[in-house]
């Protein structure tokens, strides 16, 4: 559980950004032994979703609810389709011509894959942070400003950039060098830059696909702290292969496991989805337990 905050106080970040649409939920970090979470309003309702590439299935029969203002972790061994699944939430799988998505994903009751839905609009609301930090080959300022500029966000750009950087706990480190090239930042700073960039367009949901796997432990822990702060205003879905990370930050955890089809083909599916506490202390499913305890990789 995080102890020290090595950045601005979160209250400061909240009060400086009026967010009328967001109910400010008081969320606490959870410890083993805490009372179970109340039922959160679902932000995503996933029903029987499957993804296949050129008729080769990658995940199947995914059904779960992602809760509002929660951190939901998708864990499981590599190859079980976690990244494939998370990319369904912001229609990034559209970029792969051979990918086909079945089933339905409701976002606040609207079908993400319904007729007339524009993926560009979806991505303005549901942002993504990638495994390897991918800042643009531009200045720090222009990296953050890119999103608001292309979506036509009104307002003072300097203010938007400053707010985003503060919310991502990067402002004090870069405020004197906003015009510097983003590539000169360290790996951890670049990833926080990417988070700030994502926050600048004011999304509703943040998807994180193994955001810390390319970072050192200190940078990792700073981003985990950041996640817990961001939970107040955003809903977060994180893919991670680091179980301890899932245990540290997430409220709900879904465990995906590969199922071997003919030959080497593996298809992922959910073996258990429950509160993180339960997954890591008293899981129902035997395969979950085997994975958690390391008996199965």
């Amino acid at each position: 559980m995080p102890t020290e905050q090595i950045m601005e106080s979160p209250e400061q970040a909240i009060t400086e950004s009026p967010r009328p649409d967001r109910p400010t939920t008081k969320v606490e970090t959870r410890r083993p032994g805490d009372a179970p979470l109340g039922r959160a309003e679902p932000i995503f309702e996933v029903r029987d979703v499957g993804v296949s590439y050129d008729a080769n299935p990658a995940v199947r029969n995914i059904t779960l609810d992602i809760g509002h203002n929660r951190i939901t972790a998708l864990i499981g061994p590599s190859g079980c389709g976690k990244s494939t699944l998370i990319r369904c939430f912001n229609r990034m799988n559209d970029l792969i011509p051979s990918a086909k998505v079945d089933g339905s994903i409701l976002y606040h009751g609207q079908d993400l894959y319904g007729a007339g839905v524009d993926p560009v609009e979806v991505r303005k609301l549901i942002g993504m942070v990638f495994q390897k930090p991918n800042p643009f080959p531009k200045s720090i300022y222009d990296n953050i400003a890119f999103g608001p500029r292309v979506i036509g966000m009104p307002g003072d750009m300097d203010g938007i950039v400053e707010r985003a950087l503060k919310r991502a706990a990067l402002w004090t480190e870069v405020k004197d060098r906003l015009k510097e090239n983003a590539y000169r930042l360290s790996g951890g700073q670049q990833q926080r830059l990417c988070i700030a960039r994502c926050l600048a367009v004011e999304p509703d949901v943040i998807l994180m696909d193994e955001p810390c796997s390319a970072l050192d432990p200190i940078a990792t822990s700073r981003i985990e702290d950041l996640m817990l702060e961001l939970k107040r205003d955003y809903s977060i879905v994180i893919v991670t292969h680091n179980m301890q990370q899932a245990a540290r930050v997430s409220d709900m955890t879904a465990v995906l496991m590969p199922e071997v089809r003919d030959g080497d083909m593996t298809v992922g599916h959910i073996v258990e989805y429950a509160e993180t506490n339960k997954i890591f202390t008293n899981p129902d499913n035997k395969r979950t337990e085997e994975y958690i305890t390391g008996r199965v990789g």
Partner: protein
Amino acid sequence: MARRLTASRRRYGETLIRFALMACAAVSVVTTVGIVVALLEPSIEFFREVPVGEYLTGTDWSPLFEPSSFGVLPLVVGTLTTTFWACVVALPFGLGAAIYMSEYAGPRARRWLKPALEVLAGIPTVVFGYFALTAVTPFLQDIGLPVEIFNALSAGLVMGVMILPTVASLSDDAMTAVPMALREGAYGLGASKLAVSTRVVVPAALSGIVASFVLGISRAVGETMIVAIAAGAQPTVTFNPYEAVQTMTAYIAQVGIGDVPTGSLEYKTIFAVGATLFVATLIMNIVSIRLVRKYREVYE
């Protein structure tokens, strides 16, 4: 609370841009169609007046004089002769240069060798033609070869040097694509550099090397200025490199310079010979592209 997922207005701009870009790509298709149509129509008309058999097997090509005769063999033989001598230079030395660059040269040497070869490749062909006529032919005469002022040998040799960079570059690409692991395996067994280069790398890169040869030959067949300047304007069926010949390309240029009435039979010879040329190089280019694809698939 949730915002709309549908776009606030239809993104017409995006569709428009996509079409505009597709149109740009379509220009290339239109070009090919244009080439085929441009060559086909007059050729069909030509072959209504001149039987294909006579065209392909006749040994007398004099369409511009009376009595006119339309056997294309002299032009084909002229092309083959000059191409042959070009290959004598370009293929072995191009491959040799490529082997040196890929197996022997250090990274520093490669850094200026490749651009230097590109300089050679960038010299306009009319300049090479000048060189062939004013320097190479007199030189060959000086060393005792009985070459005429216009002859196939000078043009062929200079054409070979012009094509050498193409062969070298493509062969070098093919050989550098061969994984180090193959070489290391052979070196580990105690093989010499000569053995590794010739017995491991070259065979492994063979399809790419052959592709470079085929492309080089294609370029020789399609080359105009060097042969127009130095090889002559006398279409005769001869394999003697010392004599003047006329290639298909040089003939087309000759007619182009002259003032031939549109629609006349002589005018149509441009297209008939052009079609022959196009078909020949097309076949070679397709073969070469296939071969390159083959080696790329294996190693990339």
